[in-house]
């Protein structure tokens, strides 16, 4: 809507045309190079219009209101698309005004338009005001964000409305509110309004601000058919104002109403004569001269409108359901005893069923209405769920043929931001979908250069590192998605994973990484062997652990040297590695350990021999069990040896077992009994024929455990 703040500038038509020309040239400057005819033509047009404007004035200032421009207090029609577009362009650049001085040149105009068209700046950079050194005759003012006041520690919900209204009224007095914002005036209660105005009036030396506020307020109040509500408000406001502002306000009311009394035509409901009388009294007591037209209006308002004041007519003009509307209407009803009676009558006369239905309606927020669990519903609206859905929509749009290159470029940027966030939150499937989409588009040759460039990012070292960082953080909760991710990138990701594994301290994450890497089988061998050369013991240990799963015989010569590494953790992993490949070299080393005399080596060798069922070690284990080896094993070690020999299942051990079973001792009987029990526990690993004699003798044993074990073996043998 056009809003004339003061008077219409005489050259407004010309100015309007100039703004349109500026808008056109700005677009052309944004699209074409400087020497393009379209640029030249449109600049000339704007420039010529300015020359004509400067015949009557020496400068022209365009002030940016949110969606239009203000020239000399005259607001250009916001419905005009060109005005709005140009205002929007300036607004986006935080420009609050631009003044063209008479001496400005066409080159200056071009520089200015180039800036406004956005060609001079990167959208992701700060909106830094351009320096005006090349534009001495075009002055540009920017929003000063330093001057924004902040209410710390408050939220919009708990900020006292009065504070907000005070700011609002201050804006009103400064004339910086838009026409639409004036709607808000209705929300301010008369009490709050009068309190704020009383405060402001003290600091308003010339009373101009108060006059402006009162004018807006009065215009607003009398804008609609004038009813009781407005009149009540007016009286309340007058009651709350101090003498100074009150007098000013009454003068403004008289002035405004006398100018356009038609606006204040009474509503069909009429206005209470008492209220009108009260206003007249106030005007008279304030010795305000009441113009004739206003006096006539007030007289008219004093007279009851036909039927309008009869409360019974409410019944005729409102339907039953209206009575249940608790908005303004209900307030009106509650104001009159007669109306309350009517309302009460309805409640007593309406049937119970009907009242129940009405109650249901009024109570429609009761929880039994839920048809979808609320938690699920809330989940649907949580940011991450919506982000995922949005992500999929971006995918689909990127595959569409109806997308321009610029739009596609923008989508790629969105995709980049989203995938980075998905990465940090362990949503690797979403990331993979982005990569799959780009590959799909490469296959289709869709904006091939852009797509290839974009896809590179997803195959870069930084990208894989960010995955590993994220995986370390997220842990086993995202293991399945992480494995899928690694599987997708295949051997490309292996060196990065190996590097991470080499340096990883956390046992948990090492095992997660190993889980990923083991999927690659032999593919990990070259990188793992390379890392094996690292001087740090834990890198060697981690690589050897990894190589265990590779099942590649090519690693044997590389691993053998580490079987005798001075660091026990390294040599253990190396032995496990080779034992898994049944390399004889490892058997030899285990034999060495068994004969070494070192208790630590001895126990390690027993454990490995048993775990990997190394038959080649039996020749060393048997004498050791019989106490004929370098190391004289204690009872616990003997138990370990029996268990290991059982695991190996080589019949070569059985004579040693028989010897123990036939041993009779007087002392340490308990230790021997435990060994015998352990032997019976291992016999199932041998063929029945080989151990039948021991089983038969076990059936007669007084030891219940041995007897039961023998019975089980015997039954198995009979089958």
């Amino acid at each position: 809507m056009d809003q004339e703040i003061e008077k219409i500038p005489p050259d407004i038509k010309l100015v309007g045309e100039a703004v349109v020309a500026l808008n056109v040239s700005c677009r052309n400057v944004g699209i074409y190079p400087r020497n393009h005819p379209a640029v030249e033509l449109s600049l000339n047009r704007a420039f010529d219009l300015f020359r004509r404007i400067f015949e009557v004035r020496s400068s022209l200032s365009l002030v940016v209101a949110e969606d239009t421009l203000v020239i000399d207090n005259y607001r250009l029609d916001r419905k005009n698309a060109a005005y709005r577009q140009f205002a929007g362009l300036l607004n986006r650049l935080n420009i609050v005004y631009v003044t063209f001085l008479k001496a400005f040149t066409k080159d200056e105009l071009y520089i200015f338009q180039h800036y406004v068209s956005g060609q001079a700046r990167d959208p992701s950079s700060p909106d830094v005001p351009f320096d005006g050194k090349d534009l001495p005759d075009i002055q540009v003012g920017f929003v000063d964000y330093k001057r924004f006041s902040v209410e710390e520690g408050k939220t919009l919900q708990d900020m006292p409305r009065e504070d907000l209204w005070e700011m609002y009224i201050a804006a009103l007095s400064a004339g910086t509110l838009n026409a639409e914002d004036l709607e808000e005036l209705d929300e301010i209660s008369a009490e709050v309004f009068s309190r704020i105005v009383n405060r402001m009036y003290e600091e308003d030396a010339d009373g101009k601000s108060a006059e402006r506020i009162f004018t807006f307020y009065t215009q607003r109040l009398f804008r609609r058919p004038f009813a009781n509500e407005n009149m009540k408000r007016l009286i309340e406001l007058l009651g709350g104002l101090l003498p100074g502002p009150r007098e000013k306000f009454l003068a403004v009311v008289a002035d405004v109403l006398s100018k356009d009394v038609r606006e204040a035509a009474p509503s069909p409901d009429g206005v209470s004569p008492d209220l009108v009388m009260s206003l007249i009294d106030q005007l008279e007591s304030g010795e305000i001269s009441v113009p004739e037209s206003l006096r006539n209006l007030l007289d008219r308002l004093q007279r009851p409108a036909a039927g309008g004041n009869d409360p019974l007519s409410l019944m005729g003009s409102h339907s039953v359901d209206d009575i249940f509307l608790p908005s303004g209407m209900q307030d009106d009803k509650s104001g009159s005893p007669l109306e309350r009676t009517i309302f009460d009558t309805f409640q007593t006369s309406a049937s119970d069923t009907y009242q129940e239905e009405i109650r249901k309606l009024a109570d429609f927020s009761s929880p039994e209405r839920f048809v979808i669990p609320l938690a699920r519903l809330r989940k649907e609206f949580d940011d991450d769920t919506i982000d995922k859905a949005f992500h999929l929509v971006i995918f689909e749009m990127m595959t569409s043929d109806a997308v321009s290159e610029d739009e596609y470029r923008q989508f790629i940027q969105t995709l980049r931001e989203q995938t980075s966030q998905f990465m940090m939150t362990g949503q690797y499937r979403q990331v993979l979908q982005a990569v799959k989409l780009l590959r799909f588009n490469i296959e289709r040759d869709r904006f091939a250069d852009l797509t290839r460039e974009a896809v590179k990012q997803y195959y870069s070292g930084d990208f894989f590192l960010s995955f590993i960082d994220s995986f370390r953080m997220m842990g086993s909760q995202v293991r399945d998605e992480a494995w899928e991710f690694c599987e997708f990138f295949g051997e490309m990701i292996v060196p990065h994973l190996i590097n991470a594994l080499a340096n990883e301290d956390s046992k948990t994450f090492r095992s997660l990484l190993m889980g990923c890497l083991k999927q690659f089988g032999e593919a990990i061998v070259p990188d793992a062997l390379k890392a094996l050369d690292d001087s740090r013991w834990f890198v060697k240990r981690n690589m050897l652990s990894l190589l265990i799963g590779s099942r590649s015989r090519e690693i044997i010569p590389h691993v053998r040297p580490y079987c005798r590494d001075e660091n026990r953790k390294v040599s253990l992993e190396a032995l496990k590695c080779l034992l898994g490949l049944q390399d004889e070299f490892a058997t030899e080393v285990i034999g060495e350990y068994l004969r070494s005399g070192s208790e630590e080596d001895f126990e390690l060798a027993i454990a490995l021999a048993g775990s990997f069922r190394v038959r080649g070690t039996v020749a060393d284990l048997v004498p050791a069990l019989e106490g004929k080896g370098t190391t004289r094993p204690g009872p616990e070690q003997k138990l370990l040896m029996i268990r290991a020999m059982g695991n190996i299942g080589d019949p070569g051990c059985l004579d040693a077992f028989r010897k123990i079973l036939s041993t009779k001792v007087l002392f340490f009987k308990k230790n021997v009994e435990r060994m015998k029990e352990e032997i019976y526990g291992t016999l199932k690993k041998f063929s029945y024929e080989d151990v039948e004699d021991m089983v038969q003798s076990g059936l007669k044993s007084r030891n219940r455990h041995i007897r039961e074990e023998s019975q089980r073996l015997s039954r198995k043998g009979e089958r």
Partner: protein
Amino acid sequence: MENVRAFISALMAAVSNCALYSKDHPSVTDLTRKSAAALDVVLRESGALEIMYVEHKFVINEVPFSEMGMQAAKLISRLQRKGISYVKFLPGITIDELRQFIVEIQETDRKLPAFTNIKTGVLDVQADQAKTDGDPDMSDITSFVSRQVDMTRGIYHDISQVNTPNISALREIMGNFAAAFKKPVNVLRLLSHAKSREEYTYVHATNVSVLSMFQMESLGLADKSVLADVGIAGLLHDVGKLFISSVVLEKRGTLSANEWEEMKLHPLSGAKYLSSVQGLPHLATVVAFQHHLGQDGKGYPALRMIHPDQHICTQVVSISDVFDALRSVRPYRKGLETEEVLHIMQKDSGRIFNPVLLNNFIRRTQLFSGLGLGGQK
């Protein structure tokens, strides 16, 4: 500025992980440390980090940015839900404080507590939410509805003429409707009738918005900001039609194959447009894109990549869309009675519409229309 972006990015990832996993998840600790490290660099460089959102612009330490990326937008959106438009991080901030801040902004139902080294606040009356807090004048429902339709018309004009919707106005409409739902008002009375062909777009958009918010509210969703997002998604679901030629859009007869192909582009055009507008909820893009897909995904646009489930908001908007379209008078037919509309819609339950949502909608609508409270009966 890269450090500010890195800070916000890690901060928002931590917020997401709080919601996705738990506030005690190691990743939250790790990301808090990362964001603290980035913040530390910023604080050493600038003394403090002040983030404001003014008139759809990010203002970082008093420097305005038109574009700060999705994560900054998400942070602002989270803060706005708590009624905050300004946040300032001060030197001396501890990891525990930052972590607590992360946990608190992730909580939807809680007010943000006070922090020693994080100051939050509001800017001025221009902030978006200020307008949604008022109690709209509903003494005359017809003019209340008509005001909302007028505002919708303004928003659609803005889009077609200057390419930018007035987001404050959008929020205001949603605030007004949300306030209307607090009153036991018959939702059917909040619907408007188009008086001309030209008006249909705005009236239909407004009606779909009201009906969608109403459905969500009736399902128990009371969060004002979520309801507003649903309303915005409803209001803009058909915005893509602004990009279809008027010849096709206003054709009275049957569309030719080519015309039909053009028409079928409107969900994509709408989504493309909405995804480019800063300050709009992502939900609006999702709904605009999916609203003709149908519950079975066999509608349009045809999907190439994956078959995502329609978002529940899309399902709700689809119901509102078809309901309002069928009961409206169109150049080629008269408007149908509510009962008839519901009967027709029921036939597509499970195929186009989510049966649970449709049942809920039918029950609610029948309750209103059956009581003779101003529905179609």
